[in-house]
């Protein structure tokens, strides 16, 4: 297993450690078969790279989109807030592109909650925000690997709520160039205009 380099500022490290402890406590106190693979994905450098996950219509590999810009978002369909906000802005950004530009961009939504999100649910959810957005899922282990590649922080968190558990997660959009390499990230809360600019900046001139 490759060594994971942790380049985290000390103050963030404490928070991550806390998140990890809370998550591990959640695992220890919850039914083992439910939470065995849940873990806080420690932040590492976002190296990007290829992956293979499942869609409602079969396996999908990131490298299928070489020659196009891919834009990734990690979340889940029960996500109350960050996901609808970000995917909505991404959809609006896509609609703001010229048709020949939009045709060269592939939006992808990956679930961090495969226990509750089926491939069909992921497809239906994704297409609501943009008709060609792909919804992908994989096993907890596979998702953990992809999340680590992209430096995604996430942790299942039991809450004293009818929601049972939420998945805390970092909320960046990852923009991948036509060469398959991670080009840039867009922070949470970016407007459709800003997302569109990031997509345009990544498309070949």
């Amino acid at each position, binding site marked *: 297993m490759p060594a994971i380099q942790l380049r985290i500022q000390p103050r963030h490290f404490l*928070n991550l450690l806390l998140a990890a402890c809370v998550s591990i406590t959640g695992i220890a106190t919850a039914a083992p078969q439910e939470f065995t693979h849940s873990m806080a994905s420690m932040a590492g450098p976002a190296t990007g790279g290829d992956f293979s996950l499942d869609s409602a219509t079969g396996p999908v590999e990131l490298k299928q989109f070489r020659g196009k810009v891919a834009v990734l978002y990690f979340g889940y*369909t*029960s996500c109350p807030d960050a996901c609808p906000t970000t995917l909505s802005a991404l959809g609006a950004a896509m609609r703001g592109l010229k048709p020949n530009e939009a045709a060269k961009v592939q939006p992808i939504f990956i679930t961090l909650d495969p226990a509750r999100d089926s491939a069909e649910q992921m497809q239906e959810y994704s297409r609501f925000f943009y008709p060609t957005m792909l919804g992908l899922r994989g096993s907890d282990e596979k998702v953990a690997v992809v999340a680590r590649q992209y430096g995604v922080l996430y942790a299942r968190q039991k809450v004293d*709520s009818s929601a049972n558990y*939420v998945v805390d997660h970092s909320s960046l959009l990852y923009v991948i160039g036509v060469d398959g390499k991670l080009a840039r990230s867009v922070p949470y809360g970016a407007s459709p205009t800003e997302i569109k600019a990031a997509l345009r900046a990544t498309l070949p001139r």
Partner: protein
Amino acid sequence: MKRLFFTAMLIAVWSGVALAEGGITISDPHVRLVPPSAENTGIFMVIHNQGDKDVKLIRAESPVAKSVELHTVIEEGGMKKMRPVPDITIKAKGETMLKPGDYHVMLIGLYKPLPEGEEVPVTLKFDDGSSQTLKAPVRKIQMPMTIPAAMPMK
């Protein structure tokens, strides 16, 4: 049809504003439109308190979901975390905005999909004993905030 819809929405919004009890008024209540398969969504609004004492929203009820709770979103260690809260304070002579990424009323376990324009009944209960029932229309929400643009990856 569009005019009827627009008028209905205006009436819905204004009926929300017109209900003033104990100095509390609600403006612009709305429910976020989410995909039909989504189980949860949020209700947002601005709560104004014209009274001399702080007031707390302690409970919300609605028939459209199994559970209705008060929530906030915090950011810790680079992650967005949604957490239930026991109450939401509206300061005397002040206002509190319930909005995405912040305080909101959470509808958990929707009984059926809520299409755009549908009027969702919501009852809000406050610690001064007052309560208000209003209708929040389902709306497509866009976040126009501008923050620093994309950062190139090394």
